[in-house]
């Protein structure tokens, strides 16, 4: 008596993610998604400043925004909720975000293999043609969709990192 599990829906999943843990604390909000991309928003907040005397978001929360949008773009692309871990994430900052501006992160998953997923995206504060940052990352599958039952750990755990398989 197993019903087919629903396809991962970032709009629905965001209702949970944006209320719990680190993402909830940052106040991340869902904006939009497509077949292989997700767009989230990090609202401006006084206590997330990188410097005492400038009303500009720290770069750290932008990494969190892009990490979260990356993960959701992977689940959206794969259609399931496989547990994943970030292996490598690179953020290139083009310029500071504008004062008191929210930052929007849009990440696409451009390639998945059996155990790896590759993402790229931009963060901007209103104009996608004038990004605040570019990101690139690689994630690794660390188990099966928990909705399929037990999650096997061990040989697929993070210690055996390797992404070249197809």
């Amino acid at each position, binding site marked *: 008596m197993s019903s087919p599990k629903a396809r991962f829906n970032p709009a629905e999943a965001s209702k949970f993610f944006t209320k*719990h*843990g*680190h*993402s*909830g*604390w*940052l106040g991340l909000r869902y904006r939009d998604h497509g077949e292989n991309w997700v767009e989230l928003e990090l609202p401006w907040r*006084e*206590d*997330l*400043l*990188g*410097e*005492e005397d400038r009303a500009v*978001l*720290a*770069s*750290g*929360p932008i*990494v*969190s*925004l*892009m*990490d*979260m949008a990356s993960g959701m773009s992977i689940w959206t692309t794969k259609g399931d909720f496989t*547990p994943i*871990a*970030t*292996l*490598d*994430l*690179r*953020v*290139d*900052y083009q310029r*500071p975000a504008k004062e008191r501006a929210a930052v929007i992160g849009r990440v696409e998953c451009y390639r998945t293999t059996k155990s790896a997923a590759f993402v790229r995206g931009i963060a901007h504060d209103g104009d996608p043609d004038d990004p605040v940052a570019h990101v690139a990352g690689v994630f690794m599958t660390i188990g099966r969709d928990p909705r399929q039952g037990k999650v096997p750990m061990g040989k697929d755990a*993070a*210690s055996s*990192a390797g992404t070249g398989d197809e």
Partner: protein
Amino acid sequence: MSSTQDDPAAALVLPPYARALGISLHGLEGGLPVLTVGFSSVIEGRPGAFHGGATAGLLENAGYAALRAVLVREGRNPQLKPVNITVQFLAAGKQKQTFAVGRITRLGRRNANIAVEAWQDDRERPIATAILNILMAERD
């Protein structure tokens, strides 16, 4: 031992973002500040584990703290502008106290390259590392 004037801990002011995450100064290692953060809901990603963004936030702050400490010793106070950060996640961050310290790989007049390590129980087994490139602009 270094004098108070040379003590980077004395000069370390963590930004609002670091304080909001719960990051604080733990001590010094090789004269460079070791930052620490405890596990809490503010940090949590997957249930019971660090969010990659929170780990990156600790690494980034430790990198800036190391650079500030070295700059203070040289009598410099430039504005720091991030160029990029590359984070390698090596093991899941568990529900434990986590530490990070940065090393200055290169310090020039206009740019710095910093390598940062974060660990939990075992100093020899980092859970994440990062490389930061930071530009420095002298204040007018």
